[in-house]
């Protein structure tokens, strides 16, 4: 038996036009918590998919438990004890929690018939492992993002796994849930299970992992013990550059008040929400899952109808019936879920950038002015340094961070007075995250009013000039971000 549980050696994989992995290696010891980090698009997910048999590598091999493979099928991987929690959860929205939980075990056991009672026991057992409480007969599609993720985690835990791979498991989790997850991970470690943990979040990496591996653009950069690592080194390895975080200081002078929200309410979601926002300010809104912050954002953007209160933009009351009303009033919205709400993935980057302002790029008879169109696209690609050889490429070819910039560009192109961002850096690497924060600060200083909805506390504390904390649909505190710390904010949220 070798020292390592898993050895991936010199793995290469190319997609049409991209070398996603270039002879990378990774090794994991039994019972170890290993962190795999790297910028968006550096090939982490691709390597995971190769290990789990979803993709086949072009070159290289994998050794698991001393056995050497050049090709693994998903069933083999599962049978050997490799479990993956994918970035997109890989759940079945149309099926019940029970089935989502039980399918993998049933398939791995080669069962051909369905036994409801057995499946129910299996599912209950899985939930009990992390004390997650949910009705087994609910359809997974009706769950919130976090609940979906919990289901995915439970599913992976059910196996007698030797290696559990978690591809950015914490992106949609709140702090409380992250804590619970870490406890589970430690418990698993005690049982001798190795964990491969993919994350962008520095504090998590330091908190949980023992060893780490960092990739950059498909190449292996470094592996080592986490104890020998610090913040600066970590970001340097990942990005190849160094940066200093700078807290936001509003610089825009004499900002008029652009957005006033008075006693806004949606029955069953939130009530009595009031605040004012001036040009040059960045307002942070934070709260736990289900605190109503997302509904608030949707209400501000006309995607949900409010049942009480009013919204005034530049002193004028606006009836928010549809997103178009909001856009015309000067509000932009960067949604929570890039993939299902933010981007037309198969369409070109250019189209994605201009679609919301497209009617401004037309002449008579709404004929597109292609010169202006190209100019506009070029401007935004440059302004937000979106990394692409050609803006005519499909948006799906971009990495997460660059995709988020495209969404940002789309809304900036509409020249909004107020920009609402819901989880602006979810699943975005530190390099891009830093850049996005810089962009938001710059925008505010140029006179835009920005609202950041996020539960990434360092993010809100560093970038906001004001802060609202929501709990159970109400605003419970309005601390000054400059003079509070994370623990105080947390105590308000819980």
């Amino acid at each position, binding site marked *: 038996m070798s020292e390592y549980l898993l050895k991936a050696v010199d793995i290469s994989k190319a997609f049409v036009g991209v070398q996603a992995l270039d002879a990378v290696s990774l090794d994991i010891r039994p019972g170890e918590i290993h962190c795999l980090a790297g910028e968006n698009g550096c090939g982490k997910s691709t390597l995971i998919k190769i290990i789990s048999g979803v993709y086949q590598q072009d070159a290289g091999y994998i050794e698991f438990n001393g056995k050497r493979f050049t090709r693994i099928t998903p069933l083999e991987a599962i049978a050997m004890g490799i479990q993956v929690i994918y970035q997109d959860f890989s759940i*079945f929205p149309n099926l019940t929690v029970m089935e989502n939980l039980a399918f993998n075990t049933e398939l791995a056991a080669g069962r051909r018939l369905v036994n409801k009672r057995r499946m129910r026991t299996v599912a209950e057992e899985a939930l009990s492992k992390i004390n997650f409480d949910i009705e087994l007969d609910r359809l997974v599609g009706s769950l919130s993002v976090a609940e979906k993720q919990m289901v995915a985690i439970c599913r992976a835990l059910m196996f007698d796994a030797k290696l559990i791979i978690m591809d950015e498991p914490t992106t949609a989790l709140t702090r409380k849930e992250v804590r619970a997850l870490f406890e589970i991970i430690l418990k698993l470690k005690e049982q001798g299970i190795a964990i491969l943990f993919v994350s962008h979040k520095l504090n998590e990496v330091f908190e949980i992992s023992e060893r780490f591996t960092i990739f950059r653009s498909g190449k292996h950069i470094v592996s080592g013990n986490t104890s020998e690592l610090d913040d600066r080194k970590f970001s340097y390895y990942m990005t190849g550059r160094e940066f200093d975080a700078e807290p936001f200081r509003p610089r825009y002078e004499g900002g008029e008040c652009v957005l006033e929200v008075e006693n806004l309410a949606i029955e069953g979601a939130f009530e009595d929400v009031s605040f004012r926002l001036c040009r040059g300010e960045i307002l942070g809104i934070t709260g736990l899952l289900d605190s109503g912050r997302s509904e608030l954002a949707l209400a501000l953007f006309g995607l949900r109808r409010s049942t009480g209160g009013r919204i005034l933009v530049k002193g004028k009351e606006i009836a928010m019936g549809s997103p178009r009303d909001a856009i015309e009033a000067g509000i932009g919205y960067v949604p929570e879920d890039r993939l299902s709400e933010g981007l037309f993935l198969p369409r070109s980057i250019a189209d994605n950038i201009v679609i919301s302002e497209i009617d401004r790029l037309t002449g008579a008879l709404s004929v597109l002015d292609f010169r202006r169109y190209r100019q506009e696209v070029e401007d935004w690609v440059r302004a937000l340094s979106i990394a692409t050889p050609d803006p005519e490429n499909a948006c799906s070819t971009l990495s997460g961070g660059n995709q988020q910039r495209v969404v940002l560009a789309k809304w900036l192109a509409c020249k909004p007075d107020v920009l609402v961002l819901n989880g602006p850096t979810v699943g975005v690497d530190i390099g891009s995250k830093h850049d996005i924060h810089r962009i938001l600060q710059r925008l505010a200083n140029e006179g835009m009013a920005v609202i950041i909805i996020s539960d990434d506390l360092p993010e809100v504390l560093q970038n906001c000039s004001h802060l609202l904390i929501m709990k159970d649909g109400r605003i419970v505190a309005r601390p000054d971000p400059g003079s509070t710390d994370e623990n105080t904010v947390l105590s308000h949220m819980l």
Partner: protein
Amino acid sequence: MKKKFRKLISRTEFYIALVFLALCLLIQLRSGQFFTPNNIVDILSALVVPGIFAVGAFMVIISGGFDVSFPALASLTSFVTTKVLLDAGWQGGVWLPFLIALVLGALLGAFNGLFIGYFELPAMIVTLGSSSFFKGLMQGALNSKQLAVIPVGMRSFGTSALFVAKNVESGLTSRMPTTFLVLAGVLLVTWFLLNRTMFGRGIYAIGGNPVSAHRAGFNVRRTRFLLLVYVGMISALAGLCRVCMMQQMHPTNMLGMEMNVIAGVVLGGTAIIGGAGTLFGCMLGTGLIVLVENSMILIGIPTVWKDAFVGALIVIGTGISAFQVNRARRAGLRNVRKGAAL
């Protein structure tokens, strides 16, 4: 209790069942003939062929595609079966025709399945193509004609009855055709496949998210392939039942049924994007269409008004259910949230 009710009213099946009931009452009111034993048997016997077709169409929709080739497939298989047995002078029982039809159906289904499963092409495109192909094969290469005489085995099977329902008042009798057992059998087997086997759950899983299904360890290609083979087989059964019941083989009179059958399936609450729907809803929707098409005279709608009436019923029926289901879902969500907030 209240929760169960809320769940009920957020389902399409509920509204279709209401429309169905209303229609039955209307027929009863207008003709006094709906709730008579022989009429109910008539409707059931008219349901046999569309019903079996609907099961196949339903399964393909669940897996996330559309099959429009089943009438052509059924015509081709039942033509070949009948023709071959006639030429061979088959005097035996009905088992051989069914066997041949099943094998042929499986073959043609495999043809579809090859393209849909292994080449990963969209089912609707493939079946549009294969439908034309089967039709052309039957009418061109095989030079199909109406066969007015069918083998004795098929003949006696088609006319045999499970029981005869009699309306004491009018003295009219209706046979419950033995072929109804085929529908019942197909429903039973399909229900078992869909709900009690991993193959069937795999069809739902693929309809919900094919990528996840692959990762979970479902063999997506094989599942799709086998699904199409199975659908080919039951479509062939439907075709053969039709031939037996009509006592003659007409190569083209099943063609063109596909859209109405699919409409029935969707009407019964099957999601057109796949992954959601029940066999019960599928039968309810198909039953509604069959009921409407076979009750125009009983309701007393003049023949010229028939199409307009059926069209209006489809639009209004689906409209009501789509509208109500959306409303119920929205209300349901709000209440769930309310529960969470309190």
